[in-house]
């Protein structure tokens, strides 16, 4: 093998290796990732019948807690459960039909508005849709 052939071979070989090391990430990129979609738009919070009237359930929405409430009249409401004061998780109190934060006594009505205590802002309300057996919660548009 003369020098020229060696150099040409070296050139071709290293080019191939470089291209391969570039193609590998591109192919892995195109193959679908495990979590199919970027945004967790809809979450199945509970099944119909799980919640008795005038009770609530805490569930995971995205990366933060949310609360699903079945009111006394059977209406389904959902809110962010992160208290706007110091981020504790709120609970539902059936006797007063309000959401209550045990950390510093913050209290929210069933529209998410602050009715007493230190929280500076209302709780974000979410959309509730019932599809068959499941209760879906999603962010409002």
């Amino acid at each position: 093998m003369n020098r020229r052939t060696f150099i040409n071979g070296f050139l071709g070989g290293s080019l191939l290796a470089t291209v391969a090391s570039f193609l590998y990430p591109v192919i892995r990129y195109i193959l679908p990732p495990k979590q199919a979609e970027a945004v967790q738009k809809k979450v199945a919070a509970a099944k119909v019948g799980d919640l008795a009237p005038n009770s609530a359930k805490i569930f995971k929405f995205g990366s933060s807690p949310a609360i699903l409430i079945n009111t006394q009249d059977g209406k389904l409401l959902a809110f962010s459960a992160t208290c706007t004061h110091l981020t504790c998780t709120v609970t539902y109190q059936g006797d007063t039909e309000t959401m209550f934060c045990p950390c510093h006594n913050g209290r929210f009505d069933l529209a998410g508005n602050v009715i007493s205590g230190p929280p500076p802002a209302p709780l974000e309300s979410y959309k509730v849709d019932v599809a068959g057996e499941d209760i879906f919660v999603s962010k409002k548009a």
Partner: protein
Amino acid sequence: MRNEMMMKKWLLPLAMSCLLCFPGLGFGQKNSCLDCHSKLEAELRAPADAFKQDIHQQFGLGCVDCHGGNPAQDSEDLAKDKSFKGSPKRAQVPEFCASCHSNGATMRRFNPNLRVDQLSQYWTSRHGQLLKKGDTKVAVCTDCHGQHGIQSAKYPKSMTFPWNIPQTCGRCHAGAETMKDYKIPTNQLDEYKQSVHANALFDKKDLSAPTCNDCHGNHGAFPPEVKSVASVCRQCHPSTGDLFSKSPHKKAFDDMGISECEACHGNHKILRPSNDMLGTGEKSGCIQCHESGSKGYQAAADLGRIFEALQKQMRQNEDILALAEKKGVDVSQPKFHLQDVNTILVSAKNLTHGLAVEDIREKAAEGEKILVDIRQAGDKALQEAKFRRTGLVIATAFLALFGLALFLKIRDMTRSGSRP
């Protein structure tokens, strides 16, 4: 001619006294007090300058409404007529202000929302009690509210706006000279400033955070008695209070006459509770009463261990995530989860007041479960960082080889004059 003059003479004072009934007419009327005083110097000028910002002025009230006199007259002697009250002496200030502020009918005309019991509250306060006994050094209305530039407590620059209150009270209470006759400490302001409440109020701008008046009262300011301190704390910390009331400590503390919250948390220098307050170390509150070998000592040791373990794990996870982030890997998901653990930690710390060790253990276990997941994510992130660096090395190695090959090829071609 004389009749006309006579008419003019009583017409103006009549118009002026209408001021008292119709504040709106106050605007634009002659005010010789301000005219003269704003031309004077230093202390005599100060009221005229300050009054521009005063809330009373905004309601159409003027100098004459508190001090009397005739604001239509430019001559000093005529202005200071029979109705002129001058500046009240310190001991008279509360009643001077209360002449309007304790009168429901009067206040209703200006601000129906304002309370009218400040004076009666004041007489129950330590300041009021001492004033009645003849001590004029104590605080009167003007010491906290100002004299001529009085602003609503809702206005951030007001002396009585929440984050200005510690300074307003501290003007006297933090001064060794001022307080030397009263035999009470003067370090409260310093201690408060180090507290977690001060941090919330000043740094986080959380106006719901307690300041002097929230625990001591406003006009009825008095140091709370031992039994009442806990009620005061329960205003904002109800669940903690409930847990404590159900715990064996309640009866024990009451029997010993110890103030519930204050015994472990202090009064002004209330710091963020640390794990050192539990357990059996030297900073522990538990061992102040519970001797080694007792059940209480054992419980203290258990609690100390539970929290130490939990916090150690949290810190480890935080460090791993920070390291991964520094290396460029995205860790926002596990960081979010750490917030959940923080909520559990706060909840568990709250539960310690109930002293139900098993409940606390359960809560801590909840947190530990999440921490295991976070640890996994953190480790994965560190692995990813290593993977990226390895990948870079490999790709760069290939590129370097390719570059070398090119270089040799170019050199070869230049030497032999082209043609591959």
